C-alpha cells in the first residue's frame, strides 16, 4: 500500500507541479472581487513523502531544501526560479493485526502512531470514538486504514490572514469600508480592517496575531450566506486541516446574536456548526480535518447560518488549509467465521473418503475451514459422519448330527461345508456372511444302572417290569447319540431275627421304645438296609431273686467314732444293715469294739532355781505345764501333763565389764566378752544409732549364756559404738556404750605372684576408695613401701597388711593377708594357630589335662619342672588346659586355636 501511495504521490505532485508552473504566468481571479494578485512566478513550493523524489526543471531532487534555477526564456531573457521542497514523513502507524471473530461480535479497529485515520469501507464501521473504531461485520471484511499525521508546513489558502486586503476569496456579503467605530458594519456587509485601527474594542481584541487585518462581518437574514470561499488545489488521498480564528465583536443579549458558522469543503460540511465565542473579543479557533479522497481541488467555504441581524457581528482571521503528512494505508483482515453443519451416513466399507482437506477414516465429527464466497477461508463447516457397519466374511458356524438339517436364510442344509450369502443390512450396507456347517456322526453312550428290589417287587426298566435278579440291556436312540443302558438288578429276600432278655420280678425291659414287664415273645417289623421287611422277635424270661450276707468287725478308741452306712457309733455294738435290690437282698452285720483312752493326768513337781527336772526324756528348768501324748497298749492316746514349779532362790548378777573385740569387716559376727560376778544375766539387748545403724548393724538380742556374738550384716570397716542393755529377771541390770573397730577386710589385698602384694581398687575391694598406702609385714612397717603394691620376694607365711587412707580421711588397717606360695605356672600363648604348641613353665613336676569345649578329655601328660611344651589339638576351637601340681595347686587356662 505504501508503494501505491508513493507512486500516486509522485504522479500527483508531478501534475500539481505542472499546474503550478502553468499558473505562474497567469492571474487567478476572485469571482466577486476586482482585486487581482499575481501569483509569484519564480517560486515553487513542493512537498514529497519520505523516500520519494521531486522532478523540477528536468532535475530530480531527493532532499528538502531551497533550490534555484536560472531559466532562459524564448526571448532570450532569463529568470531565476526557486523551489522550496519539503519532505513529509509517513506516520508510524500500527494497526491491530488480522483477526477472526464470530458473526455479530464487535471488535475494536484500533490504530496507534497517527493523528488522523479513516477506515474503509466506512459503512462497516459501527461507531468511532476518538480514533477508536468499532465494527461488527456480518462477513469477512478487509479494512483499509489510511492514516496521516499533521505536518506544520504550508497554508494552501491565499491571503487567509487578509494581510493582502480584500482579495483572494468570494463572499455573499457586501464590502463596506466603515466610517465610524460605533458601527462596525451593517447587516450583510463585511470589511477588511486593521485590528488596531478605528475600532472601539479593547486591546485584548487584537487577539490572534496581535495585529494586522481581519475580516469583519455582520450576519444577516440571508440564509446560508457565504462569508468566505476560496478554491485550492489539493492532493488526492491526503488529509487537510481546515482552521480559522473567529471572534464575536458585537452581541445583542435580546437576540440570538452569536454567529453560527458552517465550514464546508467541496460543499460538504466538516465538523459541527461553529458557535462564535460568547465572550466579546475572544478569539477561538475552528479546526477540523478533511480527507481529499480522489479530489484534486477543494472549494473552501464558510457560511453563516444565523439570520439575525441584531448583533451577530464577528471577525474571522488566519484561515488555513494545511496538508497533513504523507498518508499510509494498512489493511486489516477481519475474518468472520461462517458456521455450517452437515450430516452424512456411509457404510463402513465406503471408508475412508476425502472431505475438503480432511481424510475421513472412521465415524465421527469433523471440522474444516474452507474459503467462502467472500474469498476468505472463513467458513467453518462441520460434518457429522455416521458409519454403518457392513459385514464381510462373517462366519456362522453350526454343527448338526448326522441325519439332521439346518435351516439358514431360507435354505436347509444337511451336508458339511461352507455356504455363502450376500445380504443387505437395514442401513443398506453389504453383509457377506458364510455358514460353516459341520455334520458329525452320532456317538454311542453307555450307562449302567444298579437296582435293588425286595422279593415280590418289580423294577420298571424303560417300561418293562423286571422281577428276577439279573442283568438286562436296552438301546435308546436320541437325536445326537444312541444310549445303551445296562441294568444290574438285585432281588433281596425277607429277613428274620431273634433277641433274648431276662428280668426279675418287678423289672421291665425297654426294647425298641416299648416297655415290657412280663415274660413272653414279642415280634416287631423292621426294614433291612435295602428297605425290605425284617421281622425281629424278643424272647423275655422271668428269673428268681437271691440273698447275699457279709460280716464286718471294727475296733476303735473311745475318743474316736465309726461310721457304718451313714450311722456313727462310739461304743461297743453289733448292728445289721439290710439293702434290697432287684436281683438280690444284701445283709451286712457290724461288730464294733471300743477301747479306752486317757488324758489330763498331771504330774506336778517342784525344783530349785538352777536345777532341772527330766520327764519323759526331756529336761525342764523353768516353771510351767509340759504336755506329752503317749499311747496305750491298745494304741489309744494317753495325754499326760507335767506341772513344774521352780523355786526362785537366785543370786542377783553383778556386771563388771563388757567388751566387743575388734574384727575384720568381713567377719559375720563379733565376740562379746562379759565379765560378771554373783548371778548371771539372762540376755543383752544391743542397739546402734546414727551412722552405725546404717552401716550394717541391726538391733539384736543375745540370750545368755548360750549366745555371745553380735551378728553383722555386711558392715563396712570403721569405728562403731554399740549400746548394750543387760537384763536379769526382765530387769535392766547394766547399761554401757561399747566402742569397737572393724578393720578393712583382707580381701582388699591381693597376692599377685610370689613377689607382688597389691591393693585392689574400689571396684574390686567392696567400695573403698584409697588414696594412701603403707605396707606392713607381720605388723612391722615396711619403710618406703607406700605405693599401692609392693614388689619384692614375699616371705611365705608372713602376714601382710596395709594402713590405708580413704578419700574422706578414714584411716584403718587391713586385716592381714598371709603370703602363700603361689603356684608359679606360666602358660602362653592362649591364642594359637594350627600346629602351634603352647609353652608352660612350672616349678614342680606336674601334669596337664586338655579338655574340649564340651568337657571331654582330649589329651593328658606329664610336665617336668621348668619350661616345656604342650601340644594342643589341630582343629579350630576353644579348649581348656588344666595344669595340676598338687591337689591344691592347679590352674586352668582357656586357649583358642584358629
Amino acid at each position, binding site marked *: 500500500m505504501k508503494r501505491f501511495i508513493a507512486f500516486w504521490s509522485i504522479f500527483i505532485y508531478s501534475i500539481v507541479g505542472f499546474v503550478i508552473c502553468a499558473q505562474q504566468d497567469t492571474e487567478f481571479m476572485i469571482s466577486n472581487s476586482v482585486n487581482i494578485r499575481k501569483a509569484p512566478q519564480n517560486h515553487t513550493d513542493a512537498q514529497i513523502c519520505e523516500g520519494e523524489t521531486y522532478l523540477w526543471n528536468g532535475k530530480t531532487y531527493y532532499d528538502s531544501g531551497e533550490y534555484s534555477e536560472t531559466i532562459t526564456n524564448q526571448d532570450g531573457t532569463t529568470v531565476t526560479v526557486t523551489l522550496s521542497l519539503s519532505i513529509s514523513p509517513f506516520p508510524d502507524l500500527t494497526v491491530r493485526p488480522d483477526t477472526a471473530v464470530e458473526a455479530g461480535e464487535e471488535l475494536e479497529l484500533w490504530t496507534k502512531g497517527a493523528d488522523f485515520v479513516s477506515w474503509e469501507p466506512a459503512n462497516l464501521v459501527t461507531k468511532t470514538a476518538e480514533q477508536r473504531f468499532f465494527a461488527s461485520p456480518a462477513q469477512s471484511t478487509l479494512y483499509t486504514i489510511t492514516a496521516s499525521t499533521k505536518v506544520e508546513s504550508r497554508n494552501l489558502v491565499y491571503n487567509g490572514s487578509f494581510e493582502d486586503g480584500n482579495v483572494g476569496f468570494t463572499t455573499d456579503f457586501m464590502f463596506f469600508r466603515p466610517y465610524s467605530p460605533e458601527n462596525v458594519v451593517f447587516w450583510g456587509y463585511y470589511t477588511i480592517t486593521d485590528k488596531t485601527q478605528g475600532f472601539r474594542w479593547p486591546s485584548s481584541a487584537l487577539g490572534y496575531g496581535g495585529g494586522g487585518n481581519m475580516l469583519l462581518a455582520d450576519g444577516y437574514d440571508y440564509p446560508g450566506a457565504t462569508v468566505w470561499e476560496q478554491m485550492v488545489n489539493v492532493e488526492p488521498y491526503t488529509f487537510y486541516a481546515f482552521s480559522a480564528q473567529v471572534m464575536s465583536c458585537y452581541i445583542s443579549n435580546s437576540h440570538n446574536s452569536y454567529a453560527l458558522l458552517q465550514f464546508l469543503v467541496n460543499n460538504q460540511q466538516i465538523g459541527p456548526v461553529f458557535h462564535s465565542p460568547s465572550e466579546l473579543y475572544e478569539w477561538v479557533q475552528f479546526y477540523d480535518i478533511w480527507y481529499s479522497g480522489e479530489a484534486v481541488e477543494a472549494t473552501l467555504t464558510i457560511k453563516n447560518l444565523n439570520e439575525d441581524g441584531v448583533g451577530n457581528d464577528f471577525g474571522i482571521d488566519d484561515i488555513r488549509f494545511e496538508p497533513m503528512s504523507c498518508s499510509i494505508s494498512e489493511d486489516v483482515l477481519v475474518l468472520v467465521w461462517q458456521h455450517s453443519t452437515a450430516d452424512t451416513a456411509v457404510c463402513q466399507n465406503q471408508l475412508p473418503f476425502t472431505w475438503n482437506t480432511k481424510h475421513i477414516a472412521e465415524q465421527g465429527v469433523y471440522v474444516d475451514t474452507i474459503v467462502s464466497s467472500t474469498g476468505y477461508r472463513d467458513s467453518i463447516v462441520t460434518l457429522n459422519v455416521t458409519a454403518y457397519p457392513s459385514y464381510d466374511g462373517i462366519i456362522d458356524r453350526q454343527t448338526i448330527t448326522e441325519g439332521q438339517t439346518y435351516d439358514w436364510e431360507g435354505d436347509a442344509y444337511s451336508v458339511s461345508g461352507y455356504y455363502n450369502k450376500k445380504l443387505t443390512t437395514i442401513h443398506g450396507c453389504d453383509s457377506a456372511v458364510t455358514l460353516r456347517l459341520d455334520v458329525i456322526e452320532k456317538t454311542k453312550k453307555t450307562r449302567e444302572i444298579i437296582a435293588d428290589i425286595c422279593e415280590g417287587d418289580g423294577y420298571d426298566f424303560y417300561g418293562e417290569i423286571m422281577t428276577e435278579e439279573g442283568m438286562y440291556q436296552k438301546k435308546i436312540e436320541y437325536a445326537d447319540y444312541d444310549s445303551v443302558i445296562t441294568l444290574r438288578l438285585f432281588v433281596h429276600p425277607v429277613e428274620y431275627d431273634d433277641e433274648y432278655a431276662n428280668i426279675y420280678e418287678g423289672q421291665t425291659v425297654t426294647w425298641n421304645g416299648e416297655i415290657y414287664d412280663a415274660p413272653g415273645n414279642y415280634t416287631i417289623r423292621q426294614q433291612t438296609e435295602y428297605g425290605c421287611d425284617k421281622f425281629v422277635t424278643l424272647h423275655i424270661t422271668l428269673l428268681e431273686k437271691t440273698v447275699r450276707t457279709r460280716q464286718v468287725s471294727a475296733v476303735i478308741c473311745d475318743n474316736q467314732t465309726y461310721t457304718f452306712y451313714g450311722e456313727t457309733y462310739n461304743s461297743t455294738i453289733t448292728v445289721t444293715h439290710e439293702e434290697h435290690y432287684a436281683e438280690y437282698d444284701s445283709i451286712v452285720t457290724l461288730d464294733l469294739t471300743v477301747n479306752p483312752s486317757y488324758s489330763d493326768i498331771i504330774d506336778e513337781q517342784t525344783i530349785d532355781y538352777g536345777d532341772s527336772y527330766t520327764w519323759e526324756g526331756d529336761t525342764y528348768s523353768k516353771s510351767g505345764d509340759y504336755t506329752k501324748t503317749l499311747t496305750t497298749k491298745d494304741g489309744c492316746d494317753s495325754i499326760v501333763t507335767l506341772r513344774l514349779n521352780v523355786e526362785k532362790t537366785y543370786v542377783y548378777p553383778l556386771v563388771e565389764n563388757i567388751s566387743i573385740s575388734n574384727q575384720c569387716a568381713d567377719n559375720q559376727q563379733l565376740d562379746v566378752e562379759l565379765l560378771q560376778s554373783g548371778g548371771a544375766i539372762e540376755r543383752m539387748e544391743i542397739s546402734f544409732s546414727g551412722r552405725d545403724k546404717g552401716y550394717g548393724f541391726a538391733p539384736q538380742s543375745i540370750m545368755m549364756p548360750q549366745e555371745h556374738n553380735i551378728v553383722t550384716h555386711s558392715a563396712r570397716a570403721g569405728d562403731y559404738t554399740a549400746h548394750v542393755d543387760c537384763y536379769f529377771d526382765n530387769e535392766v541390770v547394766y547399761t554401757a556404750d561399747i566402742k569397737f573397730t572393724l578393720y578393712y577386710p583382707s580381701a582388699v589385698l591381693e597376692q*599377685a605372684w610370689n613377689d607382688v602384694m*597389691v591393693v585392689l581398687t574400689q571396684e574390686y575391694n567392696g567400695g573403698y576408695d584409697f588414696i594412701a598406702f603403707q605396707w606392713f609385714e607381720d605388723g612391722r612397717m615396711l619403710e618406703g613401701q607406700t605405693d599401692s*603394691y609392693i614388689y619384692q620376694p614375699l616371705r611365705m607365711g608372713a602376714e601382710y597388711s596395709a594402713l590405708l587412707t580413704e578419700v574422706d580421711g578414714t584411716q584403718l588397717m587391713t586385716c592381714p593377708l598371709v603370703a602363700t606360695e603361689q603356684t608359679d605356672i606360666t602358660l*602362653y600363648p592362649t591364642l*594359637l594357630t594350627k600346629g602351634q604348641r603352647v609353652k608352660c613353665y612350672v616349678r614342680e613336676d606336674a601334669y596337664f589335662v586338655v579338655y574340649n569345649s564340651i568337657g571331654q578329655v582330649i589329651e593328658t601328660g606329664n610336665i617336668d619342672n621348668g619350661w616345656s611344651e604342650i601340644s594342643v589339638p589341630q582343629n579350630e576351637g576353644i579348649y581348656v588346659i588344666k595344669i595340676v601340681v598338687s591337689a591344691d595347686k592347679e590352674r586352668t587356662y582357656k586357649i583358642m586355636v584358629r
Partner: protein
Amino acid sequence: MRKIINISILLLILANVSAQHFVGGTLSGSAGYMTDNIDITHSRFGGGADLGFVYEYQRGAFILDIGLQASWSVVGQDIDSMDIDYNMVDTRGIPFSYLGRITERTDKMLRTEASVPILIGAEVNNVYVLGGAKVNMTLLGLTRQNARLYTAGDYLGRYYDLFENMPNHGFYDYTPIKSEGRITFLPDVRLYGEIGGNVNTRLQAKLRIGLFAEYSLLNVNKGGYEADMVIPDLSRYMYIDMTNVYASKTVGSSPLHNLSFGVRLTMLFNVGGQSYDKNSNCHCMP
C-alpha cells in the same frame, strides 16, 4: 639392557689391533642410604664395600668397562617412637592391657648383592670418566632391629597403679631389645658415574682411583608385606618382636631407592693389543 649389550658387542667388533684389552679387579668403599617416603622413618647413612672383576676395552681415549661385582652394604633407618597396647591375660588368668613404648629404634639391613656394571667413558691424560648402568640384584638381605622397650600392665581398674619395672613378669623399663629377620628387594638398575685418575705404580698395570656415585632408577620395594612393625612375640613370654620397616606393611607401596657414593680402586692388566705404556702421558712421538 638388550640394546646396551648389542652396542657393546658392536663396539667390540669394531675394535682393531690398535685397541687395548684389560682385565682386572675393583675394590671400593662407599657410604649410602635408602630413600623412602614413610613418615616415621629417617634414613641414616651406612657403609658398604664391593669387590669385582672388570674387563676394559680401550681404543684411543674411548674406554668400555664390563664387570661383575659383589657388594656388601649396611644401611639403616631411625624409627620414631611407637606405642603399643595389647589385651592379654597374665599367668594368673587375669586380663590386662599390655601397654608399652618402643623408643630409639633403629632398623638396619645387611645386603649382599651382585651387580653387572656396563660403563663407557674416556681416558685422557690419565684422567678418566665412566658412566653407565649397573644391573643390581640383592642376593641376601639380613635385618636387625634394635630398640628400647618399656612395658607396663594396666589391670583395667583392678589395681590403682600400673605394674611397672617387673622384668620377671614382662614389665620392662626401657630395656634394650633386638630382633632379626630377612628381607628381599626387587632387581635394580642403577645409574652409575665415576671419575678419577691413573696412579703411577711400579707394577706393569694400570691402577685407577676414582670417586663414584650411583642411584637406583627403579623402585626396589617388593611390597605385599602383611606383618606389623611391632608384634607380640608368642614364642617368648611377654616380649615384643620387631619386623624391619621395609619388610612390614608400613612400607606399603613406598618407593625405595638406593643412593651411594664412594671411592673405587681399579687395577687393570693389559691382556691384548697395544702394550700399555704407563708413561703414556708423556705424549712422546712413536
